[in-house]
């Protein structure tokens, strides 16, 4: 494959996967500039489909990098090609995004709010329920759940709902949402990590509210922690070089005061606890080793520092 076709494939993949939504600003800008150059030098040799897919990608990149005028130019090209009054949901989606970006929120809303059968637009409509104040997301959550009732296999929305629940501390519900994604694709390791993380948050929340040191309460907490650990472990089982999950495992093994409480229980002869503590030691060594292997030395020091805090 020549350089041009590799670059073309990269851009097409970027556009179809939507991965740019998670890019850092520098990454966005560099991709935007590269694509601009690419379109200038190779635009004539592309097929219609490729060309307009790239225009669409450039529209998003331009908006995200605050090149409003360029975004408008890309949008106009797409509209010229496919017709302003066309029924295309994809085009309406772009138009509404542009309108919202330049502050015409009501017009954007009117554009997508027409037919219940236009499901791609329905998802876009749901995002209008989002508010800048992240602690007040009840309406947003109820719109998301309504949408998911209509589209139960929309993974992006499940993930969004999971994050929203996580934000307001409903970790059990967040876990439910993330598990829904895993049920449909059981190899997405970042989601296993997120499930583990939410279990861990759940543990912290419960531990904070813990008033007694009764045995059953502690065992309940232990169960949450085991779930968290297992999900992290599943993530590194799928992708061995996943530093985040190794750090997660390491943190769990370093819970000083809680582990001391467990030790008392373990000495009392509860087999489950003993086993957990044994595994803990092994995993602590292993995760420490793996983090050292994967992270740069200064990064490693920083991670350890952060954990201690």
């Amino acid at each position, binding site marked *: 494959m020549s350089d041009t076709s590799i670059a073309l494939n990269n851009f097409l993949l970027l556009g179809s996967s939507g991965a740019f939504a998670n890019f850092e600003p520098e990454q966005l800008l560099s991709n935007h500039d590269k694509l601009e150059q690419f379109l200038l030098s190779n635009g004539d040799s592309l097929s219609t489909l490729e060309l307009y897919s790239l225009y669409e990608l450039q529209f998003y990149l331009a908006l995200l990098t605050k090149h409003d005028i360029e975004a408008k130019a890309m949008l106009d090209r797409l509209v010229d090609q496919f017709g302003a009054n066309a029924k295309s949901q994809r085009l309406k989606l772009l138009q509404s995004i542009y309108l919202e970006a330049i502050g015409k929120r009501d017009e954007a809303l009117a554009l997508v709010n027409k037919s219940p*059968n236009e499901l791609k637009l329905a998802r876009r409509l749901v995002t209008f329920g989002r508010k800048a104040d992240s602690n007040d997301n009840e309406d947003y959550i109820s719109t998301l759940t309504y949408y998911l009732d209509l589209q139960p296999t929309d993974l992006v929305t499940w993930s969004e709902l999971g994050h929203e629940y996580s934000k307001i501390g409903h970790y059990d519900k967040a876990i439910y949402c993330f598990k*829904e994604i895993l049920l449909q694709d059981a190899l997405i390791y970042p989601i296993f990590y997120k499930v583990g993380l939410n279990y861990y948050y759940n543990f912290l929340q419960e531990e904070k509210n813990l008033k007694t040191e009764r045995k059953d309460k502690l065992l309940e907490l232990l169960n949450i922690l085991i779930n968290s650990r297992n999900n992290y472990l599943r993530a590194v089982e799928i992708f061995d070089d996943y530093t985040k999950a190794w750090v997660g495992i390491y943190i769990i093994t370093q819970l000083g005061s809680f582990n001391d409480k467990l030790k008392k229980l373990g000495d009392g002869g509860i087999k489950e606890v003993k086993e957990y503590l044994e595994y803990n030691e092994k995993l602590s060594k292993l995760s420490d080793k793996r983090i050292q292997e994967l992270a740069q030395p200064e990064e490693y020091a920083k991670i350890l520092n952060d954990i201690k805090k």
Partner: protein
Amino acid sequence: MSTPDLLLDPQLKYWVLLPISFVMVLVGLLRSNITYLLQPGPKLEEYKAIREKQFLRRAACFRQNNGVLTTEEFENRRQYLIEKLNSTEFYAKVEDPNAESTNPLSDPSTNDALMNMAKGNMMNYIPQTLIMAWVNYFFAGFVIMKLPFPLTDGFKQMLQTGIETPNLNVRYVSSISWYFVNLFGLRPIYSLLMGDANAAAELVNQQQQQQPLPNIGGPGGPKASKLFQAEAENIQILTHKSIFDGIVDRVLDQHA
């Protein structure tokens, strides 16, 4: 016995051979454009139908990937799914169990499909019949060219349709045969003119063969209630094995 050469009027080339090809190319292009215009735009599926399908898919995914759940989660979800699969909540439309099954041909939803099929077929055979009639009417029995290479007698039927001369050299081509040769051999010309190899291939395919019958729904498709029930039964008998069983040992072994 060798037949003496026929003397062909060079004017045949300009007044028969090329016009037939030219007309066929033009009609082919015109037809492809009209077919394109007649094609209905993609229709949006009703959201309820999509919801039904997606829910079914969710249930199927649960059946396949339930290993990612813990036992407790598994039981919760299983109960939820069985309950919903046995209710009519996710049906696209609730059917009256007493209603008689409808005739698929009188069902309005299949009319569209039939109409499109009819349109496609008409666009296919009307122009072809016309051109063939035209060739047959004006140039019946014409011998219009001589191929510059020898051929075996097996090609006689293909190249000399419409002229009753059993002893004529196979290298001579009749007008109606020229029409058939064009019909099957114009693909490269179309792809050159249309600048798009796929569209041309489609055009030629349309000319050469009947399109397969589209699945017009109706009695062939299984009913939602049946699918839902089957899935509910499958989930009912599911055994659960979590991937988290023994995961610590697995990871430790991986790094041993």
